[in-house]
């Protein structure tokens, strides 16, 4: 006969129902024995008060054993009935009942594969997050770099501005135009010079 360890009940009660019943049975049995011994000792003591009486202690012992045997048989019969009822109706957890600490199995009946898939997904997310985080760092690093580069480039542009302002301060509004004007004048001067030279040659 396979023993039903009633493990789920033990998980709930903190003891196995059978052990609980065994303990009660042994206690009852001990009490019955004890109280029978008391009965016998009381009767023997009472008999001491009748010295002429022919009842021997052995007779009383036999009577005790007879009554004890009878009571023990009934105790066993009644107790096994009681045990059966208690194990079935009181100290048991019906098949359809789930203990509170196990509720999670009802809500998340995950197979091994499902759990592994979930864990893979988490690892994937962690990897993605790390990638995003380092990408973010790289982007911010470039932003910093851009600030420095932009500052340098703006400095150069300011330098050009400074150059042109200098020209402007010295009468040459737009340097390019004034340079063109200068070039024109220079050319005209050259022409005049050439002209003067030719005339002076003629005069000689």
């Amino acid at each position, binding site marked *: 006969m396979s*023993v039903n*360890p*009633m*493990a*789920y009940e*033990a*998980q709930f009660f*903190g*003891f*196995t129902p*059978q*052990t609980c019943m065994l303990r009660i049975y042994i206690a009852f049995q001990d009490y019955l024995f004890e109280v029978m011994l008391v009965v016998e000792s009381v009767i023997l003591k009472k008999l001491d008060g009748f010295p002429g009486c022919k009842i021997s202690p052995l007779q009383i012992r036999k009577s005790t054993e007879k009554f004890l045997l009878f009571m023990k048989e009934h105790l066993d019969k009644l107790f096994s009935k009681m045990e059966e009822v208690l194990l079935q109706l009181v100290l048991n957890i019906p098949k359809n009942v789930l*203990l509170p*600490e196990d509720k*999670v199995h009802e809500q998340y009946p995950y197979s091994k594969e499902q759990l592994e898939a979930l864990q893979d997904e988490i690892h994937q997310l*962690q990897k993605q997050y790390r990638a995003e985080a380092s990408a973010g760092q790289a982007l911010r690093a470039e932003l910093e770099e851009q600030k420095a580069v932009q500052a340098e480039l703006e400095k150069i542009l300011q330098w050009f501005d400074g150059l042109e302002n200098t020209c402007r301060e010295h009468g040459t509004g737009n340097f390019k135009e004034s340079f063109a004007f200068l070039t024109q004048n220079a050319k005209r001067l050259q022409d005049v010079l050439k002209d003067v030279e030719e005339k002076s040659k003629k005069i000689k």
Partner: protein
Amino acid sequence: FDELIVETTTKRKQWPKKILMHAIQTMKAEQE
């Protein structure tokens, strides 16, 4: 046998919480 059953079922009742505490600590540490 009886002690074994009580010991085993006590673990079944208590240890998931203990294990979870560690798992949650790990996750929290990772989140931090």
